[in-house]
């Protein structure tokens, strides 16, 4: 799976993603892994199941990569998101951002995870001791400029 953006039920590979983006002009690669945590809001989480609207999710990831390139022209980015059942400690998302210098790589990576939480049609079904719940975060609207600006502010803080 060599696409720079993907939604997959296979185990994610951060080193492979870093390899997809790094080049001779790059002095930095930042990778971010989102992991399944064993607790949430006081509950003991046993596992998560991720569901995606896959074709639109891939388009939304492509959009985030384009937005990052608009903001940080030297950045080359890859994002893979996992679906299906994930155990505690497994990676649900991996972002790799390569750039000439570290500042842009760090900022664009942070930007990407904030935007993923805003606009990518993927849902987390949390299973915990004593029950389960669908996590409902942001109403996805890729054209919402305020949300985009908020992600930029967080990335550049």
């Amino acid at each position, binding site marked *: 799976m060599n696409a720079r953006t993907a939604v997959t039920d296979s185990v994610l590979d951060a080193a492979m993603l870093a390899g997809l983006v790094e080049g001779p002009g790059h002095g930095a690669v930042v990778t971010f892994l*989102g992991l399944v945590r064993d607790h949430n809001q006081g509950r003991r989480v046993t596992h998560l199941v991720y569901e995606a609207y896959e074709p639109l999710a891939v388009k939304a990831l492509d959009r985030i990569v384009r937005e990052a390139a608009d903001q940080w022209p030297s950045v080359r980015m890859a994002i893979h998101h996992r679906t299906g059942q994930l155990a505690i400690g497994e990676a649900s998302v991996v972002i790799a951002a390569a750039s000439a210098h570290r500042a842009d790589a760090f900022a664009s990576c942070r930007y990407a995870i904030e935007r993923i939480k805003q606009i990518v049609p*993927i849902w987390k079904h949390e299973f915990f001791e004593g029950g389960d719940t669908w996590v409902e975060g942001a109403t996805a609207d890729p054209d919402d400029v305020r949300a985009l600006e908020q992600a930029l502010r967080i990335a550049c803080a």
Partner: protein
Amino acid sequence: MRVKVRLFARLRELGGSGELVRDVPDNATVSAVWQSLVQEFPGFADYRPSLSCAVNTEYAKFTTAVADGDEVAFMPPVSGG
């Protein structure tokens, strides 16, 4: 005309399926498709303020017109990452 409806996450569970086929009037909008689902599944009504929609795997608006054979998706708030 006939459209394919896609539902996700808790909406999918409330609707009993992730994929439905429904007849809607010609010149219907996404909003009209949603209204017909609310009649069928009263639990859907609470979702309207927080809902996103897509037509043929592109984000759309509730005022977007739909055509015969279109795939219309309704999405509760997202929680990826």
